[in-house]
């Protein structure tokens, strides 16, 4: 049974600007955000066992659990080391949750920013990883040692797609869906050479189509992405559109709100 980690949006808010999406004058409508989170939570619960970490008042972005860390083996986690000081207060809260639940917690060196599953995604026998915007490439090498698997490094070149999971998702072990414009030409070649590929057009990438959660044959996708949704439906997937407008204001959507603990 798939297990995931989510964090209720009790203290979610927009209090600083650390990516291209965040604008203090465009704060989320919090009751609507809470409703959108509940819709996602309800759908995820149909497909997986959901663990909840308690939100902390000083951490408005803690709701984005994908950035908590990365599972390395069954009962071990590589904890994130956030690039921006604004998000570092999240680290002890996530550490405590993992320790209390029996996980061995590993950490990155001080000078090596790493933002967990936001930037490293499982892709069958290997992992794909983004760098330059949040996570640095030094973290890929260290993650590869803990994982004992190949980690393909992909350079992100557009500030709007600052985490790998905003620009790419893994559909199955051999197929990735991605927005080519977010990557440099080398990264695109790496993706094309290792996977079967499907593309997201820019207007749907802007609506966070790539920030989708795939569990089995179901894809939980931010609403407003009909082209890629119809493409996946044609391939036999069930696509469930979820309104995510209030989280997109902070630069996140479905996938950012979910961290995989077990597949």
């Amino acid at each position, binding site marked *: 049974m798939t297990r995931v980690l989510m964090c209720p949006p009790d203290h979610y808010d927009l209090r600083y600007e650390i990516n291209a999406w965040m604008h203090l004058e465009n704060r989320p409508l919090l009751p609507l955000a809470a409703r959108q989170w509940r819709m996602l939570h309800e759908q995820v619960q149909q497909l997986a066992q959901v663990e909840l970490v308690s939100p902390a008042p000083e951490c408005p972005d803690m709701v984005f659990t994908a950035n908590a860390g990365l599972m390395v083996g069954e009962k071990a986690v590589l904890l994130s080391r956030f690039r921006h000081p604004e998000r570092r207060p999240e680290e002890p809260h996530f550490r405590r949750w993992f320790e209390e639940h029996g996980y061995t917690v590993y950490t990155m060196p001080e000078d090596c920013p790493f933002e967990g599953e936001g930037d490293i995604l499982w892709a069958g026998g290997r992992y794909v990883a983004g760098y330059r915007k949040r996570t640095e490439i030094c973290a890929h090498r260290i993650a590869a040692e803990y994982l004992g698997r190949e980690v393909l490094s992909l350079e992100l070149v557009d500030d709007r797609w600052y985490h790998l999971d905003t620009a790419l998702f893994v559909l199955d072990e051999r*197929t990735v869906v991605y927005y*080519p*414009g977010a990557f440099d030409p080398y990264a695109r070649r790496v993706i*094309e*050479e290792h996977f*079967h*590929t*499907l*593309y*997201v*057009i*820019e207007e749907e990438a802007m609506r966070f189509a790539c920030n989708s959660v795939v569990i089995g044959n179901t894809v939980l996708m931010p609403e407003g992405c*009909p*082209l*890629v949704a*119809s*493409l996946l439906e*044609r*391939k*036999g997937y069930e696509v469930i559109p979820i309104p995510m407008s209030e989280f997109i204001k902070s630069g996140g959507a479905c996938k950012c709100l979910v961290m995989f603990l077990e597949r």
Partner: protein
Amino acid sequence: MHTELITLEGHIIDSLTLSKVLDILVASGVDYEIRSFRIGKSHDETSRAEILVIAPDEESLQRALHEVQQHGAVISQEDATLQPAPQDGVFPDGFYSTTNLETYVRIEGTWIPVDRIEMDCGIRVTHTESGWRAECIPLHRARKGDLFVVGSAGVRVTPLPRREAESVFHFMGSEVSIEKPKARIVQAVARAVRETKLKGQKVLFVGGPAIVHTGAAPYLERMIRAGWIDVLFAGNALATHDIERALYGTSLGVALETGVPETHGHEHHLRAINTIRAAGGIRQAVEKGVLKSGIMHACVVAGVKVVLAGSIRDDGPLPDVITDTVQAQDAMREGIRGVGLALMVATTLHSIATGNLLPASVTTFCIDANADTVIKLTDRGSHQAFGIVTDCAFFLKELATQLCGEA
């Protein structure tokens, strides 16, 4: 003297339908009398005319009636006449031969729409639990005893609406466009593709091997991977040269990067076919990791429905090619269900074959370097087709940029 009363109803004055019908009657050598005429007083009110057609003999009457029906003239208030097919694969004498326009038949006083309309077929009428059903049937599918419509009594055809003045395609007219701003035309095509997808309809792409020879395959591949294309019709050649490109980097032995023919390059396409035959088919080659890129690879990954129809000059062919032409037509008939827009690029044979099957309501673009292809298509009854005479590599590059952004 042979006569028949016809009625014409709709915006028949503004759209010049009445004038057209009267002109057709005169040109067909028959006489007419206008029995009644009611003119709509405002834009939303329709007009109605009853016209008695007078002909010297039955044959010229039927010919004239058949012509004017295509412009919306309703021949009578009679029910359609039905006759059984005398044997398998044969329509009854005097069967009604369909157009690609929306058609209705009158059975027991009710107008019933004809399903899956297609030109040059018969109309089979069956009685089911939910009532009467009328459908378009190609000759080879007629079964002895099936009831078919004969004559044109009780048959009504809806003509295509006139293109609106503000329509993005108005400036293209309905003719073949050569001396027109090409980039603007491609923008209009891109918009039509978007609108089709937004309506939840499918986009059909019909392509020839020149797409690969001219180096345009990557543009088509991008559109497929982004989900713009739902159905692909082609022949052995497009698939073979695309696979040749994926496996050897050549098309007909010419290196696509440099434009230089390679030593023994002429063998590449046959080796490509052999590789796919050994794998058991295109999908199997993709699954086994033998085929890793190209149009056909993209179709498999993106779940595009592909119909490859064979021809007499095919090498191989690839195992996926349907070599029985009647079977291929039937597979194409299945493939066009739900299609709202068709792009026909650089192929005469497959464009005309597809045009034969498509209802006139499907927005159709025919893109070819040669104006003849486009003219042939419209001459064969696909009057809805917009012709664009241009190089397919230019067209596909522009279209891919419009739909998927800069590469």
